């Protein structure tokens, strides 16, 4: 019996020694926040349901890349499906869709300064010129959340009429244009002084992305829907299209219709001068916003089909393409100059898609 109890006690002791350190708890080390002065923030969506979205920083001068800066500064995960970025003053708003959260992150330290949580399906951010009011669009609901970007307090909501949800938002003067992408074909217009809907007009099926140019025209790309879209009665799937809308008169022009079944791999982006529109549709295309003429040749020819995002550095016109590759491994960012010459490439996290430039 003595040997029996000897065995149990020694075995248990050895297991306690081996087991009492919860090795998976984060280990505090030298966690002094690293400053992010001038460069490019890259948001990686991560895999849906895995909670592995990440935020990276690229120094455009030194070409140094800093991984997972949110995790490093906050000892926490960014969340599930990094959806969009919005840099305002020195605050980076990070929308994480399937976590139902928007973070206000200090764009120098990466430290979270405020959180809006319990959001159904947040998609994009817009900040009013007064900088006292911000908006969060949402999928699955026709309600836009109004918040104070200084305090991250929710101050109200806008219930949209005639559209089911909200996607990208563009503010021009006192108006905010809201695309109703999912199963929709309309644009809602909000007066940001009263937060009332003042207009709704139709464009192509599923207005997917919007930007405003230097002349305050709204450019809209519509993906046309697909076989499993549950479109409103009387609306059917159609070919993808590019639209231009006069923000004063709401006059709409269908400037280009793309081949049936073709797919937009990026949203619309516009350069700092607001005179050239960019997007990926099999290749990178650049459209002069003044003429509105669709070019015959793409600016950049690309290979594969992992390109998942595109944006333009407003400070120097460089083009950044996010390549998600096979969606099962780390992505890559390709940096081109405005003429289409490759400047640099660097590895980032899983499914890179959005950029913010500082």
């Amino acid at each position, binding site marked *: 019996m003595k*040997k*029996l109890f000897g*065995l149990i006690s*020694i*075995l*248990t002791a*050895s*297991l306690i020694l*081996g*087991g009492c350190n*919860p*090795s*998976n*708890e*984060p280990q505090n080390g030298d966690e002094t926040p690293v400053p992010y002065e001038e460069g490019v923030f890259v948001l990686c969506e*991560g*895999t849906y349901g*895995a*909670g*592995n979205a990440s935020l990276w920083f690229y120094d455009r001068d030194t070409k140094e890349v800093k*991984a*997972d800066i949110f*995790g490093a500064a*906050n*000892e*926490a*995960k*960014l*969340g*599930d499906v990094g959806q969009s970025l919005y840099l305002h003053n020195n605050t980076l708003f990070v929308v994480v869709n*399937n*976590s*139902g*959260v928007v*973070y206000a992150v200090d764009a120098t330290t990466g430290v979270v300064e405020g*959180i809006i949580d*319990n*959001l*159904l*399906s947040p998609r994009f951010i817009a900040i009013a010129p007064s900088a006292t009011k911000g908006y969060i669009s949402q999928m*699955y*609901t*026709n*309600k836009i959340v109004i918040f104070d970007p200084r305090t991250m307090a929710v101050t109200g909501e806008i219930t949209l009429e005639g559209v089911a949800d909200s996607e990208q938002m563009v503010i021009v003067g006192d108006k905010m244009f809201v695309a109703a992408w999912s*199963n929709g074909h309309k644009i809602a217009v909000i007066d940001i002084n009263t937060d009332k809907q003042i207009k709704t007009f139709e464009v192509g099926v599923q207005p997917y992305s919007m930007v405003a140019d230097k002349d305050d025209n709204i450019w809209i790309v519509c993906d046309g829907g697909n*076989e*499993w879209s*549950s479109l409103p009665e009387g609306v059917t799937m159609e070919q993808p299209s590019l639209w231009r809308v006069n923000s004063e008169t709401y006059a709409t022009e269908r400037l280009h219709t793309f081949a049936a*079944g073709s*797919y937009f*791999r990026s949203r619309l982006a516009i350069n700092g001068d607001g005179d050239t529109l960019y997007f990926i549709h099999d290749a990178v295309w650049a459209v002069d916003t003044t003429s509105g003429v669709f070019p015959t040749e793409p600016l950049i020819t690309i290979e594969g*089909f992992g390109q998942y995002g595109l944006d333009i550095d407003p400070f120097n016109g460089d083009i950044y393409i996010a390549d998600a590759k*096979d*969606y*099962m*491994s*780390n992505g890559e960012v390709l940096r081109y100059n405005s003429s289409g010459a490759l400047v640099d490439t660097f*590895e980032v*996290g*899983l499914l890179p898609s959005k950029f913010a430039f500082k």
Partner: protein
Amino acid sequence: MKRLIIILLSSVLHFGVLWGQNADTLRTIEVEEIVVSAARSLRDIGVQKSIMNETVLRENLAASMAEVLAQNSTVFIKSSGRATLSTASIRGTAPSHTSVSWNGIELGSPMLGMVDFSMIPSYFVDGSEVYHGATSVNAASGGLGGAVVLTTNEEQRQGISFQFVQSLASFSTHDEYLRIGYSTPKWSSSTRLLNSGSRNDFPYTNYDKVGHPVERNRNCGYHDQHILQEFFVRGARGGKWAIKGWFTNSSRGIPKLSVDYRDDGLTKSWQDEQSLRSVAEWRRSFGGLRLHSAAGYNLNYIHYIYQFSKGGGEVQRGVDSQSFTQHLFATSAAEWSIGNTLMLAANLKASVYGVESRDVAPLTPVGYEAARGELTSFLSARWKPLEWFGVAGNLREEWRDGSWSPIVPAMFIDVTLSERYGIIISSSVAKNYHHPTLNDLYFVPGGNPHLKPEVGTTYDLGIEGRVKRPTWQLGGKATIYRSDITNWILWAPTVKGFWSPANLSSVRSSGVEARANAEWNFGREGTIGLNAIFAYTSSVDNSAGGAHVGQQLPYIPLYSASAGVRVGWRKWDFDYKWRYYSERNTTYSGASFGNSVVPAYQISDIALSRGMELKNKVRFKVRLEVLNLFGEVYQSVLSKPMPSRSYAISVECKF
């Protein structure tokens, strides 16, 4: 890894000090059985399999086959906790590469290909065998990694039998099990009922969220009911008939991610499932000829719902996915033993599968209907020309939807080096095919009807041995293997914006499986049992020119191990169980930064039980259990928290 080696070594050394004692044996306990016998049956020539006997299966009422396999075999179970989807990977292959049957009924979904082991209560299984690698072709086709064969047995005792177990555990968890049987020399009946439920809302420190709040696991309650009815009849001419029906009704919340910042009322998802598995079978022996026929029907309905609140009391379903799968089969088999040296076997199986899958949510109205017919034939010859040498060969051929698959060959060899110590070297080689699932072929959007079958070629080499003395025994087995799988089906993004499967890659899986067990009977009423399992699994992308060549497949641990100690003294039993998994990547680039990696973890459980008897007739047993004894903070699936230390008590009454 150092800690793992130290623990294993110390366990073995401590045991070594003790096993030399001699004493008469009045009490024995069964440790997990390893099939090692110099005189093993012709049926097992060259076979690499591990058996979980009823002692292991009846340890814990709350345990499903997911927990039993994770603790007692080298099968890797990917699970995010009790009553959540638990899939098996054998030797680093995909969940769909594990063939699973229960009393001859295929449990693998024809739609998804995989089996949720959390839906199989261990109390509804009386025998469990895991066929590793090439030897799976003896049990089923398509098991590129292996096969799990589950069976129930007839109660052997005559008259009325009764068993009731009540288990209560942390987080409002309860399990009730009742088995009533009646047996005569001509017929018997067995009824089993299991009712399980839990709020499962364990507290945990959420290190994934900003500020590391203490939270509770959310939306993870479940309520499962199982009923199993079996009738056995012995015919006047020696035939045996059996009819078995197993009905399951389950409703389970889908736990929220640790990084979900939404209230429970805002979004919620859950899954309801009903299934009926039924089989009628007949067996008869004529001297050395054994005949078996069976026919069965399997119906499964799964309803997955994702629901959200739009405010003002308005609720909408974002996903309302319903799937019906049906499987009808008939099979006949014959086995002919000619003396003790030759066995011939053949069987034929016809199956029809049907799937109806649809999402009726207003946002995503998609779905498909599909059916598939299969005919499988199997021939086997096993020959032992010498006492120390056996050889076996199999041929399997399949017909699917109008076309024949290539013949699947397999060969097995046994060489006995020492009868005294049961030292046997066994080897096998087999080719195997795994056909695309109906989702792979027809799912909307993305199904690819042009997919080819996955092809696996597997080689095994194993050595085993056993030393048995009046008061102690020691056994062990080690296997090295290699498996090359081509045409591996992966779902990948397409230019159209949705995902679609394709025969994209090749995978080379190789590794070592080792296990050891020991038992020592001390004094007149004491027993110590020890078992240890270790697996090294290298499962890497081997696609020519691929971007991930040489990288470990996501979620496959390179190292895994488990060990158990059981000490019995008079009416008392003490169990200690331990499991370890090395760090796992969840993508092909997971190691490059932290948030796509599941860190290594080890879990310890202990249990103490006391048996009692009333008038030598009614037996009682009380069991106390502490799970995750050391409160390990861990995740098994990314962003899915797991419970810290928890407690359970169960009371059993049996006669």
